[in-house]
């Protein structure tokens, strides 16, 4: 079952990339997806059941919308900091505690933090994230934890856990 899930994902990716319905193309896609499945099925998709839960996709769509909005907002913020003659930056590395349990959820959280301008994940050690922040607004751990990951964490819990 795990292999079939991976095969379907790989095949859909192939069809998206090649985007033609010729027979030769579909056969090549089946072989390519089969090869990938044979090589990687042991390392990928430890919990494939989650792929068949439609509710998770619903939360994923909401997550993407919120994420894109945050990205645009924060991008203007960084553009302002770069363009302003005084360069109002106050960088620092802060430690943020996350309550996410699974690895994949942590990876997506770290990636989201890196993509929102102003913050880059430097390292993840167990459940602590070290984040380089271009403008450290406050020293209060509760405040910046909420500010950086509060928006994403609850939704990611619903999607991946």
């Amino acid at each position, binding site marked *: 079952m795990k292999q079939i899930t991976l095969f379907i994902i790989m095949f859909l*990716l192939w069809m*998206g*990339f090649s*985007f*033609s319905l010729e027979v030769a193309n579909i056969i090549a896609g089946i072989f390519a997806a089969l090869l990938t499945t044979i090589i990687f099925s042991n390392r990928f998709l430890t919990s494939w059941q989650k792929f068949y839960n439609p509710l998770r996709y619903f939360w994923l769509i909401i997550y993407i919308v919120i994420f894109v909005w945050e*990205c*645009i907002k924060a*991008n203007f913020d*960084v*553009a302002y900091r*770069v*363009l302003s003659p005084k*360069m109002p*930056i*106050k*960088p*620092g*590395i*802060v*430690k943020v505690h996350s309550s996410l349990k699974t690895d994949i959820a942590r990876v997506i959280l*770290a*990636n989201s933090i*890196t*993509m*929102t*301008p*102003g913050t*880059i*994940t*430097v*390292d993840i*050690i167990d459940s602590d994230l*070290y984040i*380089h922040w*271009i403008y*450290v607004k406050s*020293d209060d751990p509760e405040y910046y934890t909420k500010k950086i990951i509060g928006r994403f964490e609850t939704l990611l819990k619903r999607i991946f856990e």
Partner: protein
Amino acid sequence: MNSISIILYIVGAAFDLFGCLGLLRLPDVYNRLQSATKSVTLGTCSILLGLFIQYGFSATGIKALIAIPLLFFTSTVAAHALIRGSYKAGIDLWDKTVVDHYKEQNK
């Protein structure tokens, strides 16, 4: 449709430009990575989205759409690897950096 995609191209190019300006102006490697990876990725994503709107569900449009998540994952992982690598290699933070909680981990 065409005008929307042209607006997206212009916005994307502008953010790419801001990213490059940040690369020149900001003081140290960590801050430069901030502007280099993100503004540029978002700018490029905007250009790809414009491409998708212009071509619709054709071979070109779908490829542009798939390139967005690929770019997202590769550039975030690359930024993370670069910033962690430069910290481990011992490059100092800028003098006006306010906090550094990561130092305790690296003693």
